[in-house]
C-alpha cells in the first residue's frame, strides 16, 4: 500500500481508503463516450496554479501526449446518491431535514427539545459524528429510531456524504416515518458541499460564534432555507451584535428565513415547530 497517509493526515484527520484499492464504480458508458479530444494542449489557463512536475521532461520523451476534455463535476457522484435518496424519501412520504452547524452550536439540544413536541408526527434521526455515539445515546430516551453514522472510517470525516446516508437509511423503517432529521457532523464548511437528498437544509449558528460567520462561510448559509440563531438566552452576557448578524445573513442569502432560538428559555421553539410543519405541508402537497 503506497498511499501516504501521514502526509494527507496533516490536512485531513480521516483514514482514507487507498484510492488504488477503493472499489471503483462501474464505468458509466455515457461518461466514457463523453471523451472529446482537444487538438492542442493549452499552456494552462490564466490564473492557474500548479506544481512543477519534475518527471515531466522524462515523461514527454517517452510518449505522445494529448489532452482529453472531460467536464466531470466532482460532486456528481454524491449528487447521484442524493437523487436516489430523494426518490426513496418521496416514495415513503418522508420529509428530511439536514441540520448543519459548527461543533456545539446546539443541534442535538434542538432535537432533544423538538422530539417530544411533534405530536402525531413520527420522527427518526440519523446522527452523524466522527467517532462517538454519544449524541445517539442522548436521543435514545425519546423512543424514536436513531441510527448512528460514524464518518471516521470513510476518509470523509468532516461531513456526511450521501452514500453513507443511503446505507444508514436502510436501517430505518421508512414506511413508519414522517419526518427524518439528519444531524450532520459539526462543521461550518464541508457539510454545505454535499447534498444528502434532504428536503430542507437548516443551519444553526450560536450567539457565541460571532457575527461575521456568514461572510466567512457563505456557502452553508446560501444552501440553507432556515437559519436558527441559537443560545439566545446567553445574549445578556455577551457583546453580540444581533442586527449585524442579521444583515450579514441577508447579504449572503436574501431569501434565508431567520429564527432566534434558545433551548433553555424556549424562545423561538414554537416558530421552529411551525416552520417544520409548514414546510412539510408544502413538500407533501407538491408530491401529491
Amino acid at each position, binding site marked *: *500500500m*503506497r*498511499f*501516504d497517509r501521514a*502526509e*494527507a493526515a*496533516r*490536512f*485531513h*484527520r480521516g483514514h*482514507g481508503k487507498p*484510492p*488504488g484499492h*477503493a472499489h*471503483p464504480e462501474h*464505468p458509466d458508458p455515457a*461518461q*466514457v463516450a463523453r*471523451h472529446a479530444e482537444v487538438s492542442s*494542449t493549452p499552456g494552462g*489557463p490564466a*490564473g*492557474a*496554479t*500548479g*506544481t512543477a*512536475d519534475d*518527471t515531466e521532461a522524462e*515523461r*514527454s520523451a*517517452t*510518449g*505522445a*501526449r*494529448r*489532452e482529453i*476534455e*472531460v*467536464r*466531470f*463535476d*466532482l460532486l456528481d*457522484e*454524491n449528487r447521484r446518491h442524493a437523487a436516489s435518496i430523494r426518490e426513496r424519501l418521496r416514495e415513503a412520504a418522508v420529509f428530511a431535514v439536514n441540520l448543519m452547524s459548527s461543533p456545539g452550536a446546539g443541534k442535538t439540544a434542538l432535537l432533544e427539545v423538538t422530539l417530544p413536541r411533534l405530536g402525531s408526527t413520527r420522527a427518526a434521526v440519523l446522527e452523524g459524528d466522527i467517532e462517538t455515539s454519544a449524541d445517539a445515546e442522548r436521543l435514545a430516551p425519546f423512543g424514536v429510531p436513531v441510527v448512528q453514522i460514524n464518518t471516521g472510517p470513510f*476518509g*470523509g470525516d*468532516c461531513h456526511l456524504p450521501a452514500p453513507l446516508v443511503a446505507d444508514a437509511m436502510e436501517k430505518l423503517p421508512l414506511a413508519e416515518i414522517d419526518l427524518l432529521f439528519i444531524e450532520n457532523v459539526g462543521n461550518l*464548511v*464541508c457539510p*454545505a*458541499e454535499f447534498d444528502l437528498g434532504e428536503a430542507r437544509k437548516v443551519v444553526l449558528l450560536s450567539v457565541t460564534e460571532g457575527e461575521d460567520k456568514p*461572510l466567512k462561510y*457563505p*456557502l452553508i448559509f*446560501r444552501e440553507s432555507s432556515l437559519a436558527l440563531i441559537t443560545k439566545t438566552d446567553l445574549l445578556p452576557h455577551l457583546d453580540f451584535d444581533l442586527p449585524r448578524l442579521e444583515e450579514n445573513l441577508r*447579504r*449572503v*442569502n*436574501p*431569501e434565508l428565513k431567520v429564527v432566534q432560538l434558545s433551548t433553555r428559555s424556549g424562545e423561538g421553539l414554537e416558530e421552529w415547530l411551525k416552520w417544520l410543519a409548514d414546510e412539510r405541508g408544502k413538500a407533501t402537497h407538491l408530491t401529491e
Partner: protein
Amino acid sequence: MHEMSLAMGLMREIERQLEPYGPEARATRVFLEVGGLRAVVPEAMQLCFRAAAQGTVAEGAELVIEQIAPRGRCVGCGREREIDHRLFLCPDCDLPVRLLTGEELLLRSIEIEEPERKGHK
C-alpha cells in the same frame, strides 16, 4: 476539510477516463476548475491530490487548478457583476443577485500520455 474525499473521487474518474487508452496510458496533467465559493483550499487540494494519486495512473501528474471568480446577475436591474466581499445583494437595487459562476468543481480535462506506436482505438 474534504479535499481528500474530493481527491479520491477525482482519482476514480481519472482512472475511468483513462481505461479506454490501455494499461500503459498515464495522466500527466489534470485541469481542475474551482469556483471561488467552493470551500476548497488549493494547497490542501494539491497535497491530497499527490497522496491520492500514488499507485494510480495519475501518480506524479501535475494538478492545475483554475480558480473561477464568482459572478452574478441582479434579478432587478439585470446587471452582471463580480461578487466581491461575498455580497449577494445588488448595491443598486438591494435585490438578490443570481449566481452565474463561482460554484464550479469540475475536472475539465486530462493530459494523457500514451506510449509511442501504441495509439488507442
